[in-house]
């Protein structure tokens, strides 16, 4: 087992809607990412995965609010730190974030290099523009982006280029952890592949130590990350290696999710896709027991009583269900 770069313990956050309603989108989430590993987070829209990505940064501004839990990056707990300290010494340096719609993540009226200057100087005001330019140019060339991009405005870049530029800017300070929230969902497949390649290269070259990759596209996740967690209604419901999670899911929801994967590969045409009826619960007032209970084929009375804890089966393998592994497998066998 490698060195743990990022550890999150029982992190709970909420966001407040404009009608002043609290939405508990991240509910006691714990996770660990080891050095050189990447963790994928999968889930339907509205399950809280994007909120989780934001919460992991340890830097909160409305409408997101921190409630409890710890975030430990490379042994340093950042959840107790002052926001300005987090901003100065953590953001961008220790942990970096690639937003969901990276297309709009660059200030439209600013050249890329000027933004990089602002980023670098926000952490190290002593750096000269020339140094920063050199630094940026080197980085861009390393990741396969032409240096000319630096002198451009975001509107002058294509979608894929923009996305890769955002990633390059995000890692300019050499953060340990990279949190990528659906970085490729708006791109065509080729650009998507380039983005994934770039992320993989960054990991492999050790430029970033660990990555959390969030997407609803399971085949992509399977190809990008080492481990996969499945999120449902603000909670983690399943965790395992990518292979386990995709081919041998335990939680009934994960099972359903994986059964709906469509890839252009032989056998697919004859495969029967699974479907899960119903809709996820409203996170403004989630049910007391298992949050999947209403949609679960195997639901039992005890599911609805109290919150269901995670069960650990084997190293790093976990799921959240009242049924044991055996019971589940039997149930799946019987259809």
């Amino acid at each position, binding site marked *: 087992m490698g060195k743990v770069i990022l550890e999150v313990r029982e992190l709970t956050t909420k966001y407040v809607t404009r009608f002043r309603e609290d939405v508990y989108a991240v509910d006691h989430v714990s996770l660990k990412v080891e050095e050189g590993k990447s963790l994928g987070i999968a889930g339907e829209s509205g399950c809280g995965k994007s909120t989780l990505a934001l919460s992991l940064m340890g830097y909160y501004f409305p409408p997101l609010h921190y409630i409890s839990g710890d975030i430990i990056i490379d042994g340093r707990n950042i959840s107790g730190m002052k926001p300005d300290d987090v901003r100065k010494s953590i953001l961008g340096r220790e942990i970096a974030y690639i937003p969901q719609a990276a297309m709009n993540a660059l200030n439209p009226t600013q050249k890329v290099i000027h933004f990089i200057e602002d980023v670098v100087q926000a952490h190290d005001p002593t750096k000269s523009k020339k140094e920063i330019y050199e630094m940026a140019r080197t980085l861009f060339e390393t990741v396969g982006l032409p240096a000319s991009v630096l002198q451009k405005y975001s509107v002058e870049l294509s979608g894929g280029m923009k996305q890769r530029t955002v990633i390059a800017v995000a890692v300019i300070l050499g953060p340990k952890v990279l949190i990528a929230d659906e970085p490729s969902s708006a791109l065509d497949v080729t650009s998507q592949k380039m983005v994934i390649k770039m992320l993989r290269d960054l990991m492999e070259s050790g430029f970033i130590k660990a990555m959390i990759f969030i997407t609803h596209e399971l085949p992509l996740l399977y190809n990008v990350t080492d481990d996969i967690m499945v999120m449902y209604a603000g909670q983690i419901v399943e965790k395992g290696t990518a292979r386990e999670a995709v081919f041998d899911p335990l939680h009934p929801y994960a099972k*359903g999710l994986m059964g709906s994967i469509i890839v252009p590969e032989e056998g697919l045409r004859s495969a029967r896709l699974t479907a899960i009826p119903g809709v996820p619960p409203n996170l403004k007032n989630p049910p007391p027991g298992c949050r999947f209970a209403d949609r679960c084929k195997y639901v039992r009375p005890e599911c609805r009583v109290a919150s269901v804890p995670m069960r650990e089966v084997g190293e790093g393998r976990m799921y959240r269900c009242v049924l044991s592994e055996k019971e589940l497998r039997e149930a799946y066998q019987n259809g």
Partner: protein
Amino acid sequence: MAKRDQICLEARGLTKVFGFGRNRTVAVDHVDLTLYEGEVVSIVGESGSGKTTLAKILLGLINETEGEVYFQGKKRDIRSYRRKQEYWKNIQAIFQDPFSSYNIFNKIDTVLLDCIHMRGGRGLPHAQKVEMMAEACRFVNLKFEELTNKYPFELSGGQMQRLMIARIFLLKPKILVADEPTSMIDACSRATILDMLMQLRNEIGMTVIFITHDIGLAYYVSDTVYIMERGRFVESGSADKVILTPSHPYTKRLISDVPKIYEEWDLSTV
């Protein structure tokens, strides 16, 4: 499944040009297309390839710049709005975004009621109309009683898209153009939608044109696949042939760039 005997819709040299002068862009470029009755055809292309434009031309929602469309052997004539209304009795659509497909100011059942009216049921007694709507809802696994008096925003995306299928169930068109009907739907609901579509196709024997960017999805649902790039069809044929043994470089690239789970996804080809 495909009967492959009767040509249902045929397009010859279909072209759509937007703008003029230097702003001229050719969205659809001399496309030929033959649809047989009862067949499921996928048109696969990336964003900007012109597939949605093509779908709208076939639907008669926008006018082609050049080329002809033959419907059931006859040249399609939709020059007046009245003729278009006739044409639309035979061809229907499901759109990508269920949230923008509904008029948010109308109650759900008006969508279904419109269909009954369109099929000449305007004069039917109310109870019969309700029964027809309830039947359509049952077909897509929705409870009509729960839907009446509801507004679209009170439904989930999956439910809305199912209701769209119910609509088709009532209209029973010859051709259905499904423009990315599942791309805005969560993975777990996707299967339901697709299953219902296929079931409907089987029941009323309509032809389905499936527009999608997801090559896997196209493979999953269709008999015939057309690959579209920059307004042109670059490759077409049976689903198995096109997906499993692509011949055109574009098709090859497209397939190789999609992440897979059984085969190795080769990142080195970027």
